[in-house]
């Protein structure tokens, strides 16, 4: 019992130390940048000011930060949903009929190893506007989801399949009641990984892709102007959105998969 108390105070302590670490970091940052007075090392307060300016006045072309965020998330969302719609059923199907996958490996595997970012120039030539981005995200998110689902279907615990079989259950019943629930956590993990890669891809696609809106192109614009504080704002926003999306996944996983022994999160 006293252990519990300890854990409680420990947690509070950890929180306190973290706050302390952050304060010291910001203080050091401020001092160093004041002393150096370098163009390349803005103070935290300059960064904050840039953030507020970006929100209210917009960037050099007058496009507000909100608009950039909106465009990026919209693209991500479209590509990601497409990847789920295709990747999950295909993964389940090919997991159930391993021979189909084994026989088409020669076509699927090479594509898997081409980084999705390498498709960007091809996509620029072949597609226009929104579809460019959606396609790249789709490509980036598809393989983790597809492969995650496929491997998971293949590794369903055989005893769990035998249980309904021993009662004489039909194939469809086994798929619905055993295969799908047991793969669901892995599908989710695949989705989380796919989302992460999709997020990397959208950055690259926006930097290369030609449009003026999107977080990726925004930070690249500021790189050309050598405005570090604005790049930092962009990166922090990117990190925050990535973190937020990841938290949503973890929240849903904890909720839906209460039955799991322990969810390893990293």
């Amino acid at each position, binding site marked *: 019992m006293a252990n519990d108390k300890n854990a409680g105070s420990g947690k509070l302590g950890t929180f306190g130390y973290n706050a302390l670490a952050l304060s010291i970091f910001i203080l050091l940052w401020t001092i160093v940048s004041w002393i150096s007075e370098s163009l390349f090392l803005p103070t935290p307060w300059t960064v904050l000011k840039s953030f507020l300016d970006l929100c209210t006045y917009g960037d050099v072309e007058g496009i507000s930060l909100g608009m950039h965020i909106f465009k990026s998330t919209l693209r991500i969302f479209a590509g990601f949903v497409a990847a789920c719609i295709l990747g999950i059923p295909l993964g389940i199907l090919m997991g159930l009929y391993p021979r189909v996958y084994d026989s088409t490996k020669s076509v699927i595997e090479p594509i898997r190893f081409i980084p999705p970012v390498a498709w960007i120039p091809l996509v620029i030539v072949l597609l226009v506007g929104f579809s460019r981005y959606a396609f790249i995200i789709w490509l980036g998110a598809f393989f983790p989801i597809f492969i995650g689902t496929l491997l998971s279907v293949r590794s369903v615990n055989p*005893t769990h399949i035998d249980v309904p079989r021993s009662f004489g259950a039909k194939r469809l019943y086994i798929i619905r009641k*055993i295969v799908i629930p047991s793969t669901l956590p892995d599908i989710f993990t695949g989705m989380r990984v796919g989302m992460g890669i999709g997020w990397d891809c959208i950055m690259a696609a926006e930097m290369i892709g030609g449009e003026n809106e999107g977080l990726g192109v925004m930070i690249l614009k500021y790189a050309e102007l050598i405005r570090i504080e604005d790049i930092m704002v962009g990166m922090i926003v990117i990190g925050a959105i990535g973190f937020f999306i990841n938290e949503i996944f973890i929240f849903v996983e904890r909720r839906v998969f209460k039955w799991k022994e322990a969810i390893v999160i990293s």
Partner: protein
Amino acid sequence: MERELIDVDMSMKFDNLSVLEDIKFKVHENEFLVIVGPTGCGKTTLARLLGGLSKPSSGHVTIAGEDVNPKIHNVSFVFQEPSCIPWLTIWDDISMGLEIKGNNPQTAETKARIKEVIKLVGLDGFEEYFPKQISGGMKQRVAIARAYATKPDFLLMDEPFGHLDAQTRYLMQIEIMRIWEREKKTVAYITNNIEEAVYLATRIIVLSKLPARIKAEHSINLPRPRDLTGPDFLRIRAEITEQCEVVG
């Protein structure tokens, strides 16, 4: 002797590896048949054949003259591996067999049956728990309850307590005897534990090492509950131990 329910006469090969050779026996109604054999002698293969989960490479396993098939016959299986479905609560897990057998899990009748078996194995109050929240012994109780719920004509248990520690195992043996004496069922129970076999069985079949053949058969007529240290018990146990080749 009561009516013969199951007739076994078969051999099993995997590619060129012969696992079961000339296995020939009958199971009588309401009998508690225990099959013992050394580790790795193909006991699980035999269990799967008896439950209709796989087909023999030659010969037959029949119930009332028909090849055993879980889609037709009312057979239940208790697996050696922990078999609770992790994403189902105890209640849902137990209702699974009934649902497959065509009972609507929402009807009062089905619910009453589930309640009854949960009570039978002493799990009342744990209906809404997930497998990760209960102990190994309780998980095996769930598996037993699930098997009993469908009122099977034939109940197969493949080393159901192999993963439990000695004390839990002992308690579960008493439990399974209590349940069997209340709801007489035809049981085939497979184990490598000779003490357990002598404690439970009305009849014991001893298998040899791989490829497994039937080595001996014993009828056990000791009064129940059996005394693990009674002279007759120890004599039979020693005799069977002798017959079972001990493996390093």
